[in-house]
């Protein structure tokens, strides 16, 4: 089965890493996968040893490729540009849309998808599936395929020596949705109770003005010198950063106001870090209150302080929670499992599409939904 994944960017980001893992895993299972990027970038390095299956080119070139090659399945990752490709109508390509973006403005393209263009929408969480259903205006099946943890998070956590001041870590993109300012505010709140905590902000933003805003905001709250900023850490190094946070007696915190899955927290759990997260979906799907992490109300940041203090003061609780968190997240998001689910879904979609020939709209949808048990 020939499969094509299409994505806008070729950065060193998480999507590219997932695509790389998929190329390997799908090839090993007898599929013929390829990836098409609409723009070039530093992510080439990720695909160094599988260049033959990676293409970079404009929409026009992609359209030409689709005309030339006959792919059995075409998947797009939040790249609605594929629906603007011209001259493909007679080829009857129907896309599988992987819907991962948590940004409301970027989600709107779902409203304009038609069932004759799209076979199914795949999401990384039930919460995101719910979002998709709310946006879709036509009957298009929505399925959940768990995000795979990357291989370098799977090895046993490593103990780091060093300064034993506890580190409160925050990992993510520095924008308003991920709410980095919430982390700064929480740092100020926590310092009222514990003076010995160090704060690590691991993240970046393409917006350079954020640099000044960060300085200004942290100074205003009196926590400037307490926050160590790591601007744009290569994802390959994140496991060691998380190991260091855990070894320091620290905790990983999310202040995010919107996630499609919550990968940074899943990764922290994979490295046995105790986590404190907003009490909202999709975190509730893989963090269990008091067992693998603590929840708080992100609208009222002070509610994060008691669980943070509790974790910072209780070594045994942190260790237990970290160990249970790793077990739980590996069970649900180990790459083998995630890949098996993806393969199963792709096969189901392919079969459903074949068996639905001649069926119209609603009937086909019912059949596909019956397949998925949704």
């Amino acid at each position, binding site marked *: 089965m020939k499969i094509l994944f299409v994505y806008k960017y070729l950065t060193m980001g998480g999507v590219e890493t997932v695509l790389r893992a998929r190329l390997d895993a799908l090839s090993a299972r007898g599929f013929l996968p390829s990836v098409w990027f609409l723009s070039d970038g530093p992510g080439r390095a990720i695909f160094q040893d599988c260049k033959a299956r990676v293409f970079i080119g404009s929409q026009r070139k992609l359209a030409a490729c689709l005309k030339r090659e006959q792919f059995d399945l075409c998947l797009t990752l939040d790249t609605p540009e594929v629906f603007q490709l011209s001259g493909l109508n007679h080829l009857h390509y129907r896309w599988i849309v992987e819907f991962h973006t948590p940004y409301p403005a970027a989600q709107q393209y779902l409203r304009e998808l038609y069932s004759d263009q799209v076979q199914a929408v795949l999401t990384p969480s039930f919460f995101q599936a719910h979002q998709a259903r709310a946006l879709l205006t036509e009957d298009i099946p929505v399925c959940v395929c768990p995000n795979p943890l990357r291989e*370098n998070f799977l090895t046993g956590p*490593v103990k*780091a*020596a*060093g*300064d034993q001041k506890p580190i409160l870590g925050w990992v993510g993109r520095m924008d308003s949705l991920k709410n980095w300012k919430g982390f700064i505010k929480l740092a100020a709140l926590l310092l009222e109770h514990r003076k010995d905590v160090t704060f690590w902000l*691991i993240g*970046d933003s393409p917006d*350079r003005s954020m*640099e000044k805003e960060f*300085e200004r905001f942290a*100074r205003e709250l009196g926590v*400037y*010198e307490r926050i*160590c*900023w*790591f*601007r*744009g*850490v*290569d994802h*390959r*190094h994140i*496991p*060691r*950063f998380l*190991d*260091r946070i855990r070894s320091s007696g620290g905790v990983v915190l999310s202040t995010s106001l919107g996630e499609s899955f919550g990968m940074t927290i899943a990764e922290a759990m994979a490295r046995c870090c105790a986590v404190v997260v907003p009490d909202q979906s999709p975190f509730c799907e893989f963090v269990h209150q008091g067992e693998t992490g603590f929840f708080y109300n992100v609208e009222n940041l002070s509610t994060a302080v008691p669980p943070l203090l509790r974790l910072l003061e209780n070594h045994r609780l942190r260790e237990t929670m970290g160990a249970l968190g790793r077990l739980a997240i590996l069970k649900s998001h180990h790459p083998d499992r995630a890949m098996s689910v993806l393969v199963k879904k792709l096969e189901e979609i392919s079969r459903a599409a074949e068996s639905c020939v001649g069926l119209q709209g609603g009937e086909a949808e019912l059949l596909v939904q019956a397949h998925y048990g949704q």
Partner: protein
Amino acid sequence: MLVRKLLQRGAGRAIDALKVIFPVGSTGRLFLQRTRASIRRYVEPDADFGRKLDRLLPDLETWAIGRSGSVFLILSPVQFREDEGQRATNLALEMVQRGIPVLFIYWRWPGEKSAPIEGKPGVLQIPMDLFLRCPERFLRSFHNLKRYVLFEYPHPELFGPLALAHAEGWITVYDLIDDWSAFQRVGQAEWYDPLFERYLVLHADVLLAVGQSLADRIGKQTGRQAVLIPNGLSPDITRIETPQALVRGEVTLGYFGYLSDAWFDWPLILEVAERHPGWKLYLIGYGMSMDPGLLPANVIFLGKKQRSELASYAANWDVGVIPFKQGGVARGADPIKAYEYLAMNLPVVATGVHPPPGGEEYVMCARDALEFARKVTEAAAAGKLQDRADYANNCSWEERLNLLIRAAAESPRVHQKSFLFGGVR
């Protein structure tokens, strides 16, 4: 700038018109192309900067791989000028000597002429404004080398690059060379932001200080102990290439270096000159605001001289002097000239500054003009002492760089960084 733009536009139109006459491939057309490129280089001197870097950065990495396996990025308030002998320049020279390439990022005032990117082999000079446009270009390079970034001043614009350096695994070193707050108080270093300096002190992997008073001050303010690495000596500073004969006085005094009003104590010098008309005082340097014509007859301003010429002038002196104003600026400094005078076997009399660490017995300190003059007389009578020169010769930049690299190797934060970035090659 407007004039330059207009020139470019006008010349561009003229060249376009001449293209009709000269066909593609003709000598005339080639001449037109070269003329246009020259005008562009004049109007936008940094236009081909990025293209140059594409070639130079990989070359520099290759150069280091075959030699030291390390690279230094130095953020310096001054250009790399071998004739001025600043600490950053001297350290860079010593690094290159060891096969460690240097990205020398220097402050450039608006309108100031840039240094050529390529000068000395192993050193690339980049103006700070161009570096700040895209620090990623530099800090996300050299992955095959051990990477150090040396902050020679705490400019607040370096907040972002510091965060980037941390994220990329560079060993960050803050070298406390001056009391910048004191500079600001005397109307210099307007950019100085004490909060950012404190941030840098607290977050750099390695903290160095040029003198004990600076280390003590910062230790008191932040609780962080700095490793003391004083200034040093270039081995060739004592070499006399062409002897220079100067008219000598009853006592002949000399000074070389920057003559800024911010720290050079002109009133003291003028008072000493007036009280001792038989003495002669030679001044070599730059940055003097006073009109040399207004100086007393026994104070002779020789202007700026090449570093290679200094020893030939100093050979005529009995005493080297460092007449700095009392206050924070001088108190925080560790004048390189002190080492240089001593290496030239001159006794030293100073005001405002501390003697270099370990060199207390060779530098006489005074508080006012009377005491200064008395100590000059004592020092001149002491004559040449070999252990004075021996002391200075042990303070080499080679030894200082050894100390710097050792301080980094012993820093717990550097060990932590090795852990963070050690999992992946």
